[in-house]
């Protein structure tokens, strides 16, 4: 027996798609070679709100190579009813329909598509389109939009919105509290900006069928959406997203470039590619701006007695985007009196959207700054303060967790970081000209599980293919699928191929919310277990029937390409021998993993969450206020880790984006013009190499067989949650300056008074 070396769940396998990515062979949406391809370049609205009066296309059409100009004046037929434009993650309101009519609802709205036989001709011609508008008053100023904030009626709320559940008498308890903190926090709008710009290559097959290579986080949702919106019939639309150059939520819903590309292809009956410019990447999804007012009351010993939350996030005028902002602190901490208020404020932009850890990245982060303030107000170490208010159960819903190893995360994280070396007072640690600060925060996210199907095909030569219409946006789904299959059937990973990112494959949801590994992994495991069952029955054909009497696959070990009797490890047969004996050229099964009745009951009775403890060291130049984040330790409790190598990368990525949230990321609005101004990578800052120093990731032991079939909780979001608060809190500890508006840019830090 040599199962100790088996590569499976828990192995640090290098990404199976790695070689394709490092050699440039991995094909992204704009990279498929398609015959007779036309290039479309979008023309975007100059105004923020109003109507198109006229479009002068004459000069554009004169450019050699230009094939056509498409706009609301000549577009192909679109579905009229909003319900035909619903996508997998639609939110209440009227979905954006490009070229639907002459109405302009936001600056940068695509209003025409120039199609030419070269990209360069289309780009030049697009610059020659002359559009006249009738402008209407607009508002993109978030502060001004708060006058119009509202809570949508029940039917017009997002179906995944969780209203806060109040407990006790928060106002009274706050009024009576001997120690109080009251402050308002703010998060700037952020644009997702995955490195790959949104792109679609629509291949026109000529028989009424199209293949859409799309930059999107799921294939089957857009397939149904495009079929419905353009009346194509689902069987005629295939969507492929085999490689996705990052998403972070911007590809959860189909973006406008796919509408334009499909309209172009239908209109011209030819293949069309549309790639957004980086500037155009600022015309759609973005993390909502948020204002969050927190009031905390505590006893002198730091025991929380009251928490009051009131937050508003931005949305558009045409859809009600909502986030869970205020509930995280209410769930996380033991506090007898808690209340939450939440509203959305509409403005004349595109609808805000889910961006990495939507809701939590904003709400938990801002609340954790307030928690830090209370720790100082009560004179308690910030980590002790959190432990003092630790809740073993979900304090808002009153339900136990399937598991919560946050205490262990605090302990292991603090030990690795050296939290005990922190001196309590702000501005008390200094090295040379730099003030040194230690800060920490708690992170929290949901552990979700989504119905997903997978197919497993074992060939007579012992090679296995596992396939599912799931996506890999950098999260490692290919690798997870291979590892789970290797684990289940005892095959070497190099004998296994994972296929995903194609709407023709077994049903899977869009990738997001950190449910991918748990869901796709469970589906692959189920499919491979079915293969195992078929192998067991095929083994009856082996000479001497050596597996006779084995009662189900639980009686078998799969390793080294062979099946082995658990009750007698000397009895083994290679999978290829088993198949040969039974005369099988392949075994192919498809299975669907989804929450069963037991899971449903568990979901109703228990809360399912990942947790983290983030520790951060910053160094701030005392006079110039330049901030350097020199160390981060993120200790994560996320159930079972399928692949420690790719799992660590997920957390690193979340931490880096969290550092960006803390220090860099902000889209600036010109409220007069009604448009975002820093719409490029030179002026919209995300962290660069030089901004990122040591990041240490810890996964604490958290066995949880109940949360999902594999015991996996998911890692895509948790890394960012709380990170920006840890940075902000470290900056306070270093400087004594409390900046309550993220990002903490040098201007804000210079202006902030020191306590």
């Amino acid at each position, binding site marked *: 027996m040599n199962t100790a070396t088996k590569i499976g769940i828990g192995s640090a396998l290098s990404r199976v798609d790695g070689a*394709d990515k490092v050699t440039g062979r991995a094909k992204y949406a704009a990279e498929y070679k398609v015959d007779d391809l036309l290039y479309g370049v979008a023309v975007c609205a100059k105004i923020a709100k109003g109507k198109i009066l006229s479009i002068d296309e004459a*000069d554009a059409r004169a450019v050699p190579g230009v094939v056509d100009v498409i706009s609301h004046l000549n577009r192909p037929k679109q579905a009229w009813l909003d319900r035909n434009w619903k996508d997998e993650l639609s939110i209440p309101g009227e979905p954006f329909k490009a070229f639907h009519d002459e109405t302009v609802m936001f600056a940068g709205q695509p209003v025409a598509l120039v199609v030419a036989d070269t990209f360069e001709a289309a780009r030049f011609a697009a610059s020659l389109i002359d559009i006249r508008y009738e402008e209407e008053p607009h508002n993109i100023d978030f502060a001004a939009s708060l006058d119009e904030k509202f809570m949508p009626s029940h039917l017009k709320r997002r179906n995944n919105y969780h209203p806060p559940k109040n407990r006790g008498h928060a106002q009274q308890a706050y009024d009576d509290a001997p120690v109080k903190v009251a402050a308002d926090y703010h998060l700037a709008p952020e644009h997702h900006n995955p490195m790959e710009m949104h792109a679609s290559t629509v291949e026109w097959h000529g028989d009424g069928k199209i293949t859409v290579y799309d930059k999107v986080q799921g294939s089957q949702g857009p397939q149904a959406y495009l079929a419905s919106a353009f009346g194509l019939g689902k069987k005629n639309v295939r969507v492929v997203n085999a490689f996705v150059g990052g998403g972070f939520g911007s590809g959860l819903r189909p973006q406008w470039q796919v509408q334009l590309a499909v309209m172009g292809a239908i209109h011209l009956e030819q293949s069309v590619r549309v*790639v957004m410019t*980086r500037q155009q990447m600022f015309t759609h999804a973005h993390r909502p701006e948020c204002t969050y007012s927190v009031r905390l009351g505590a006893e002198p010993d730091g025991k929380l007695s009251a928490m009051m939350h009131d937050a508003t996030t931005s949305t558009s005028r045409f859809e009600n985007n909502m986030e869970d902002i205020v509930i995280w602190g209410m769930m996380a901490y033991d506090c007898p009196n808690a209340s939450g208020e939440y509203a959305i404020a509409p403005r004349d932009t595109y609808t805000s959207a889910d961006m990495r850890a939507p809701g939590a990245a904003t709400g938990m982060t801002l609340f954790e700054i307030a928690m830090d303030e209370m720790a100082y107000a009560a004179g308690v170490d910030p980590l002790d303060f959190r432990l003092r208010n630790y809740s073993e159960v979900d304090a808002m819903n009153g339900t136990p967790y399937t598991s919560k190893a946050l205490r262990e995360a605090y302990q292991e994280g603090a030990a690795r970081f050296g939290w005990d070396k922190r001196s309590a007072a702000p501005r008390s640690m200094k090295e040379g000209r730099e003030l040194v600060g230690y800060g920490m925060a708690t992170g929290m996210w949901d552990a979700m599980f989504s119905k997903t199907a997978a197919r497993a095909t074992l060939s007579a030569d012992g090679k296995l293919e596992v396939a599912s219409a799931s996506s890999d946006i*950098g999260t490692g789904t290919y690798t997870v699928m291979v590892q789970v299959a290797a684990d289940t059937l005892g095959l070497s990973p190099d004998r296994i191929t994972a296929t995903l990112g194609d709407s023709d494959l077994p049903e899977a949801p869009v990738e997001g919310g950190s449910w991918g590994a748990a869901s796709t992994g469970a589906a692959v495991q189920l499919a491979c277990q079915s293969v195992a069952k078929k192998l067991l029955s095929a083994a009856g054909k082996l000479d001497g029937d050596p597996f006779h009497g084995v009662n189900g696959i639980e009686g078998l070990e799969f390793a080294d390409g062979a099946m082995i009797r658990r009750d007698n490890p000397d009895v083994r047969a290679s999978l290829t021998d088993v198949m040969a004996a039974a005369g099988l050229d392949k075994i192919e099964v498809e299975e669907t993993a989804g929450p069963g009745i037991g899971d449903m009951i568990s979901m109703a009775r228990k809360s399912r969450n990942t947790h983290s403890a983030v520790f951060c060291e910053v160094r701030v130049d005392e006079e110039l206020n330049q901030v350097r984040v020199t160390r981060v330790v993120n200790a994560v409790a996320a159930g079972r880790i399928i692949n420690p190598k790719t799992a660590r990368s997920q957390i690193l990525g979340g931490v880096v984006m969290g550092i960006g949230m803390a220090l860099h990321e902000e889209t600036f609005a010109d409220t007069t013009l009604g448009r975002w101004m820093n719409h490029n990578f030179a002026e919209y800052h995300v962290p660069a190499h030089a901004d990122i120093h040591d990041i240490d990731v810890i996964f604490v032991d958290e066995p949880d067989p109940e949360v999902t079939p594999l015991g996996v909780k998911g890692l895509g979001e948790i890394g960012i949650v709380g990170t920006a608060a840890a940075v902000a809190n470290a900056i306070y500890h270093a400087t004594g300056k409390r900046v309550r508006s993220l990002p903490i840019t040098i201007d804000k830090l210079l202006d902030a008074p020191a306590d």
Partner: protein
Amino acid sequence: MNEAVTLDRAAGQRVAADPIATLPLTLTINGEPRQLEVAPWTSLLDLLRDKLDLTGSKKGCDHGQCGACTVLIDGKRMNSCLKLAVTLDGCEVTTIEGLGQPDNLHPLQAAFVEHDAFQCGYCTPGQICSAQGLINEGHAKTRDEVREQMSGNLCRCGAYPNIADAVLEVLGTEKKA
């Protein structure tokens, strides 16, 4: 540039209907001499991706602000999105496709896989070409120097620590390419 170049807004209209002439262009791409006919408004990046099907070089911003399009031109790393192809007549261009193949990875490519120095993979070819340029330049030895001199390559997935590990590993063993 002369003032009319920015001030004359109607300039485009005047030349809208004029066809753009192509020019002969000789490039050695990944060791292979290529005789091409290219319009002057085509960037090296678009030439590689759209006309030569060398899609390993990525378009992440098209303005020199992200580094995803980084290739080696006569051994030096540059943003291919900002190079009009016709200006490179006679040059040698190395793209990610010229560094190694899946069954014969370049040491940087192997180190990137081993260190999980990418997630979505979109910035990766640019990071690797940039790292090769960094090695060719010979100005970086320490981790701080690698960080600073790789800062022209953004990674939104946040793989920076792993990228630095991968580059440092190769720096320790690699000679100039």
